[in-house]
């Protein structure tokens, strides 16, 4: 609406202006005809031409598609201003006495050309950081933050999958089950941490799949809209000590503050539609206010109306600065709403009522207040910052499912260990279930920066304390235990509000020193972060641990060397850092595991007598020795710059050997099994007389899992990038980036495994203990060459991104087939010997290993060509479109003598959008 009225105003104004000139010009008007061209005589449309007369009255017109404007003016002296986004401003005077026609030659705006960057740029700072700016995002046309990952070294365009969770991966190839590295990426929005430590959402209906489960992966990138973002810094390397509770990296998002025209965006692609409206104002009193609304509607596929994802975000931001005695106080405040809904209505078959539905909604209200005192330059204190942030989440999973039991099934309902009577469920019913999460996150940071110079060394000392509080006040899973959504659950619902809060306190100090040694420029950052978990029971070993994270970065700027007409600049940067991600509430306080063993499951259809009895064992899955996952990062980088040619190459090595891992465990149980045929029914009691019924002793080995620091994620790799200047004659820039990643995922603690078989009517009663589990080593060399041309006269950007794998190598690590030990029903560890291998039962503990484990799968070259174009089509209207994978090539390969042909299965993916800046 706003947009429309604004547009109407413009049109009205134009009409009034036109008419007024016509009316007053009846007498003696002369025409001024101007034509805008560039040095190559190419017409320039949409240049704003303002003619100002001696009475300071101005006449505005835009050049038409012939590059012309024709003013009808009273004779006077005019000052003509020519403005165009791609060209330098021109200003000249004309004395208009009669009709006049003139050509204006505009000079391209060199800065604009250089500044038009549609790729991520590598920061020249102390650690490897990709910076993505607004223009790059506009050209990329993202639906969510996930799409920006393409711009990082090693990134490739991917079709958006908005109907499932999008975890973040930095510097790795990815493997399911190894989530710590995505959990260990910290997202910050306008200086405040997006904390997911109190995320406990889980669906009670295990059969329909936990759509959108994020409790172990951290931030779901599809929930972050990009339209308000001014710039993103992705710190892939070692962040300073000011940032913590992360292992893999830090993503800092800065949103627009201050004046913007009324902006609107409408994007459509294969699976989604996106709408955005935003506006920023600067008031006369110095307030800067921004407001925006963003809406995304995505489907799993265009024809499927039943499974969809919706995202609504609204944001109100303000900034105000006061100055008093050279001291400036800046107050930034953000009020945000973000809501996402995963909807799934199951369509069992046409012709049946849709009884089943699933809805996973997450809403967050957050308020951030950042106060910063900036002291004058002469003071030792540079600034003091106080950031406070509070976020309340309303997370609800609501589902309804028609449950059909296979006949009459009994379930245990006891919540405690012991023998208990079971309940027979109706053979079919509708189960309504919900999971209510109410995460509350409060973060506070107080930080000061000191700056001084001693002995030629300039110091910038950052120190601060930080406190993060996360608590979930939700009711957790709620459903009628007599009408459960799924059978055979091994847990019982519990309220989330009973779980203690996660409280992390950290203090840090870091000094960034700069020193010029002759022509050498040296920078050294040394920092230390100490963190501790508060409010946790003494039973946890983490309770009395202080985690110390030293971080060092050093940059050596070599003297500039003159080659030809320009200087070659060289910087060498090295870094070392230790980083911890503390366990989240979901990892620290898992739900108790229930082992339910049926002693009686009696149903006599002849007289409708029934009775069930269970032996239930409740076990806490809390691992009290769980500690934070630690990642040690090392990296070295070389930066070269010569005449706007930039090149960097980084080698990194990251070792995380204490990642969180669900480790399988076994426990043996014995109980009495009464077979129905042996049961003596007692009509008086209305139940069997078990005392006079015969039972057999039954043994089981039950499997469960709990979280341990048992996972290795080792990342090494080389990231590189080159960007050329924009060559003037063709207005084209070449940017090549890529990465070689080698990631090894494996277990760091022994693995228990039981072969999945049952013999003699019962489950296998032994579990082997093996030194190694399925491990993976994945390496790849990915390239992305972007050729982009900017035509200022058309305000048009065209780019081709040629990307793919140079190679990819996958290796399943070798496993030893035989265990070195085993446990039996006695829960005691026995040695596994040659003799055991001959035992009819124990022989099964020798695993089926594959001869192709340890054989590297080498997949060769792939190539995808993606094209994007964006152009201002009319005044403040810009249209863009993209086609991904218009051309593809996937080279076939041979593995273990088998030739595998590959092709792009999904075909080209395209989308388009239109932007208004009014």
């Amino acid at each position, binding site marked *: 609406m706003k947009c429309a009225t604004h547009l109407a105003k413009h049109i009205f104004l134009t009409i009034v202006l036109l008419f007024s000139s016509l009316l007053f010009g009846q007498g003696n008007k002369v025409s001024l005809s101007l034509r805008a061209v560039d040095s190559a005589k190419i017409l320039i449309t949409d240049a704003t031409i303002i003619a100002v007369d001696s009475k300071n009255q101005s006449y505005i017109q835009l050049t038409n598609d012939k590059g012309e404007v024709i003013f009808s003016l009273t004779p006077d002296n005019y000052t003509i201003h020519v403005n165009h986004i791609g060209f330098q401003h021109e200003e000249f005077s004309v004395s208009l006495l009669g009709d006049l026609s003139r050509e204006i030659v505009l000079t391209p705006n060199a800065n604009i050309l250089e500044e038009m960057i549609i790729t991520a740029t590598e920061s020249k700072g102390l650690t490897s950081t990709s910076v993505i700016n607004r223009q790059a995002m506009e050209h990329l046309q993202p639906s969510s933050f996930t799409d920006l990952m393409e711009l990082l070294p090693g990134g490739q365009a991917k079709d958006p999958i908005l109907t499932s969770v999008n975890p973040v991966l930095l510097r790795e190839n990815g493997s399911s089950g190894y989530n710590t590295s995505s959990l260990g990426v910290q997202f910050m929005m306008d200086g405040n941490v997006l904390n997911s430590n109190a995320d406990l959402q889980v669906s009670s209906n295990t059969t329909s799949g936990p759509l959108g489960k994020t409790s172990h992966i951290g931030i779901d990138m599809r929930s972050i809209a990009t339209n308000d973002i001014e710039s993103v810094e992705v710190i892939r390397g070692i962040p300073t000590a000011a940032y913590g509770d992360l292992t893999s990296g830090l993503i800092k998002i800065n949103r627009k503050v201050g004046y913007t025209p009324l902006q609107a965006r409408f994007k459509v692609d294969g699976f989604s539609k996106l709408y955005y409206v935003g506006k920023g104002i600067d008031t006369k009193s110095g307030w800067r206010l921004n407001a925006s609304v963003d809406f995304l509607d995505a489907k799993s596929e265009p024809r499927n109306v039943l499974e969809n994802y919706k995202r609504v975000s609204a944001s109100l931001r303000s900034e105000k600065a006061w100055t008093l005695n050279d001291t400036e106080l800046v107050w930034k405040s953000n009020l945000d709403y973000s809501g996402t809904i995963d909807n799934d209505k199951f369509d069992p078959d046409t012709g049946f009522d849709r009884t089943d539905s699933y809805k996973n909604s997450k809403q967050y209200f957050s308020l951030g207040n950042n106060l910063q005192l900036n002291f004058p330059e002469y003071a030792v204190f540079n600034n003091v910052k106080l950031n406070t942030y509070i976020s309340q989440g309303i997370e609800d999973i609501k589902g309804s499912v028609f449950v059909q039991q296979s006949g009459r099934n*009994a379930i245990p309902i006891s919540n405690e260990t012991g023998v208990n009577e079971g309940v027979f469920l109706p053979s079919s019913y509708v189960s309504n279930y919900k999971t209510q999460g109410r995460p509350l996150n409060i973060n506070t940071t107080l930080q000061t920066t000191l700056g001084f110079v001693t002995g030629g060394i300039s110091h910038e000392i950052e120190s601060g304390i930080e406190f993060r509080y996360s608590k979930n006040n939700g009711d957790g899973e709620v459903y009628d235990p007599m009408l459960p959504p799924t059978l055979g659950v091994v847990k019982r619902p519990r309220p989330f509000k009973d779980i203690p809060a996660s409280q992390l306190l950290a203090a840090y100090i870091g000094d960034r020193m700069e020193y010029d040694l002759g022509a050498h420029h040296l920078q050294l950052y040394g920092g230390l972060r100490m963190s501790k978990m508060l409010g946790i029971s003494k039973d946890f070993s983490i309770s009395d641990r202080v985690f110390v994270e030293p971080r060092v970065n050093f940059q050596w700027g070599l003297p500039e060397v003159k080659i030809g007409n320009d200087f070659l600049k060289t910087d060498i940067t090295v870094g070392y850092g230790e980083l911890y991600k503390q366990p989240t509430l979901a990892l620290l306080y898992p739900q108790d595991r229930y082992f339910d063993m049926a002693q009686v499951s009696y*149903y006599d259809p002849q007289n409708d007598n029934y009775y069930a009895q269970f032996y239930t064992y409740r076990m806490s899955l809390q691992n009290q020795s769980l500690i934070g996952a630690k990642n040690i990062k090392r990296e070295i980088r070389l930066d070269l710059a010569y005449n706007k040619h930039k090149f960097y190459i980084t080698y990194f090595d990251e070792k995380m050997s204490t990642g969180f891992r669900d480790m399988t465990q076994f426990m043996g149980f014995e109980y009495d099994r009464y*077979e129905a045929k042996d049961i003596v029914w007692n009509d008086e009691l209305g139940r069997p007389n078990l005392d006079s019924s015969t039972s057999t002793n039954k043994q089981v080995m039950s499997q469960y899992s709990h979280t341990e620091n048992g996972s290795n994620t080792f990342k090494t790799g080389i990231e590189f990038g080159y960007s050329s200047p924009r060559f003037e004659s063709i207005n084209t820039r070449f940017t090549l980036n890529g990465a070689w990643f080698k990631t090894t995922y494996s277990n760091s603690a022994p693995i228990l495994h039981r072969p*999945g078989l049952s*013999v003699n009517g019962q489950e296998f009663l032994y579990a082997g203990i093996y030194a190694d589990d399925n491990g993976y080593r994945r390496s790849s060399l990915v390239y992305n060459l972007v050729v982009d041309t900017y035509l200022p006269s058309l305000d048009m950007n065209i780019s081709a991104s040629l990307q793919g794998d140079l190679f990819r190598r996958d290796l399943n690590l070798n496993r030893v087939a035989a265990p070195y030990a085993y446990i039996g029903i006695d829960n005691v560890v026995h040695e596994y010997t040659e003799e055991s291998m001959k035992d009819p039962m124990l022989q*099964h503990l020798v695993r089926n290993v594959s001869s192709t484990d340890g054989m590297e799968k080498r997949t060769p070259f792939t190539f995808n060509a993606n094209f994007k174009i964006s152009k201002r089509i009319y005044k403040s209207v810009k249209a863009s479109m993209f086609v991904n994978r218009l051309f593809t090539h996937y080279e076939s390969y041979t593995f273990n003598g088998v030739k595998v042909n590959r092709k792009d299965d999904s075909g080209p993916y395209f989308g388009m959008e239109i932007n208004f800046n009014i």
Partner: protein
Amino acid sequence: MKFRQIYLAVLLTVMSLTVSSCLSDDNATELTQNAVVSMTFKVDDVKEIKELEVEFTEVNTGMKTIEKAENTPYFSVALPVGSYRMSSEGIGILEDGEEVILGSKNEMLDITSQVTNVNIKLTVKQFTDDFIFEELFYTGFQTNEGKSYQTGRYFKIVNNTDRVLYADGLLIAQSDFMTTRDNKETPFILDEAFVCQSVMMLPGNGTDYPVEPGDFIVIADNAQNHNLPNVAGPDLTKADFEFPTLDGPKVQPDNPSVPNVDVIYTKMNFGMFVMHDRGYTGYIIARFPDGESVDSWLSEHKYDYSYLTGSGKEQSFSRYKIPNNWILDGVNNSIPDKLERLVTSAGIDSGFTYCATSDGDKGRYGKSVRRKGLGQNEFGREVYKDTNNSSVDFVPESRASLLDGIIHN
């Protein structure tokens, strides 16, 4: 049912033997009186009788008379008066051209008068030498709400012999291999054994569960009434055996009057024997030979195999195998246009049968595969065709027979 009766009227005019009066009077004259035997042969379901052989044995003298007839409705035999035991055998032709062996019970026949009219009922005698599958119902049901209902499934096994058999210790196994996917597993052993993913063994000490000739037993997954308001399933409360899941967190009810089988091996947890609901697997009936026990089988018959996937990766597995010479009967199931191979040796079953015509075929629910009946045996029970080729022995996409209840003749 369509009945076709064949009347074979055999009228035999027996000429009186003229006793020669020329014989000397010294000779004691023995007057042998001949009789006219008029026989009516009756057999259900048979279009015509191709050949017949009737044997008369005079019980006092032991004298045998064998008469044969081919493609003729007439049958002539001349017999002296006497006391006979009579038996007949023959070949009949069914409506569909199938030939069956016919036979009659041994009947006593006293031929005293000049003309004797005998009605002889022929029955089908195409016996096999042991138990065979009569029906496999593995598809399950769909509820009125469109949910699947994967219980109420069963095996129906018939004694297709002419003697009493005991079901004690019978093994029923499901193949690990699928007929819809030929992975070219190595080592290849189908010529010598059947590879199992699950094996159940019926209880009993050898003579606890007799089965009359032509009678059947039902082994239900759960012997309960599956005819529910929203599921048109069978009432299996009178099944002979059941295999409910009693371990693990999902427990089924146990019927006290139906003995449970032992699942002696399964690749699944909780001792589960789960039939493939689209019919990708084969099933066999077997018996351990003398001296073989569950334990000895488990220790001696593990089978490790591996194969390469389409992308060259080796997959390896451990299962159990049952030697082909222990197998009494077997049947391959598949989906006609997805069939890639058979999972039994051709000697056990050289064909396949099916319930589903495509993977997502909802029409398969409530359908079973049933063996073709050839006619009735002497107790009025069906005799079934068994040529070890289930493409011709079975009727695919049959209606599950127990939907009408478990009725023994």
